[in-house]
């Protein structure tokens, strides 16, 4: 699941976890526009992560269509009209589901690794 990028020695984002990262980010930080979300994910990862910032936009539209996030128009720091994304009630519920799934998956893998040694 984790792919290492040899040239830059950074981790690709684990497959299927971008949704979780976005939902968690919005939950922690409140409404944000796309660039802030991408930067926030990178900052939390402390530059260990190799994220194509553009890749969050397809994820955002999908989350919006699922009803997990909603958009509002706002003004960016560069005085441009941009979309601000925020978590919905359904999104909050989905976040807890995804967190639980992730914890279960990592616990399962950890169990195998322990059994190995």
């Amino acid at each position, binding site marked *: 699941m984790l792919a290492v990028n040899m040239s830059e020695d950074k981790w690709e984002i684990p497959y299927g976890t971008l949704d979780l990262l976005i939902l968690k980010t919005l939950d922690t930080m409140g409404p944000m526009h796309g660039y802030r979300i991408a930067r926030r994910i990178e900052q939390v990862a402390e530059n260990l992560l190799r994220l194509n910032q553009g890749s969050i936009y*397809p994820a955002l539209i999908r989350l919006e269509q699922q009803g997990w996030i909603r958009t509002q128009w706002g003004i960016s720091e560069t005085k441009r009209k941009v979309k601000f994304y925020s978590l919905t009630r359904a999104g909050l519920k989905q976040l807890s589901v995804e967190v639980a799934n992730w914890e279960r998956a990592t616990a399962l893998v950890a169990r195998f690794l322990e059994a190995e040694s």
Partner: protein
Amino acid sequence: MRLRSMLPRLLALLRRRKLDRELDNEILAHLELAERDAMAAGLIPEARQAARRNFGGIEQMKENHRDHRSVRWIDNLLRDFRHGMRSLARDSGFAAVTLGLLALGIGVNSAMFSIVDAVLLKPLPFPEPERMVRVSEAPPGGRNGTTTLTFLDWKRQTDIFEALSVEVPTRAAVATGADPARVSGKQVPADYFQVFGVKPQIGRTFASGEDQPGASPVAVLSHRFWRTQFGGDPGVLKRDLMLDGEPHRIVGVLPAGTFDRDEPCSGSR
């Protein structure tokens, strides 16, 4: 795919242009912010390139965005359709030929269907319609000029038909109520109804001899004519039908459906 997630995707198809524009603006704002941050971090000359690099492939992302927000095959279908319409509009001669061929094809098809509908789907309202043929010396729809003598020759010489009869379409003025009207009917010989195997609902059909010269004029009414002109009067047999001012004794009424298509009445002389 569930309806809940399908619906916004279908709606996205309709708002394609708006969503594309919104995404373009979002990308623009994103790059601007990234450039600003890069400059603040001291990357003065290469701030723009850094912003672009961190963003990743733009066109690839847009395709991905469309994939995620809508239904790919419908999207492609609509795009192909628009492309087709544009090509047709550009080459109007080709478009005209195409439309002409289509119209011809559809026309031929509906003509075929009319025939199939009449012959197969709505068979004649008589017993054993498949054993019934119309003999004519003219092409269908043309005016048949078979003479009485020719018909009599056919009748005498042929043995392939169980019964052979003849009809002469006619129109006559009738005055049953206040309003005189012209109605269409047929002059037929006495054995006419044997061909169709139709039994009358009231009274009788023609008796042999009633088509001979000197016999008193009689008429058999179609069911519809009886209903519309005589109000379904069960005592209609006591009444006369005035055809062009000449009284015809009504001897019978046909059952519903048999001769109701276009002939209101049948007269015999």
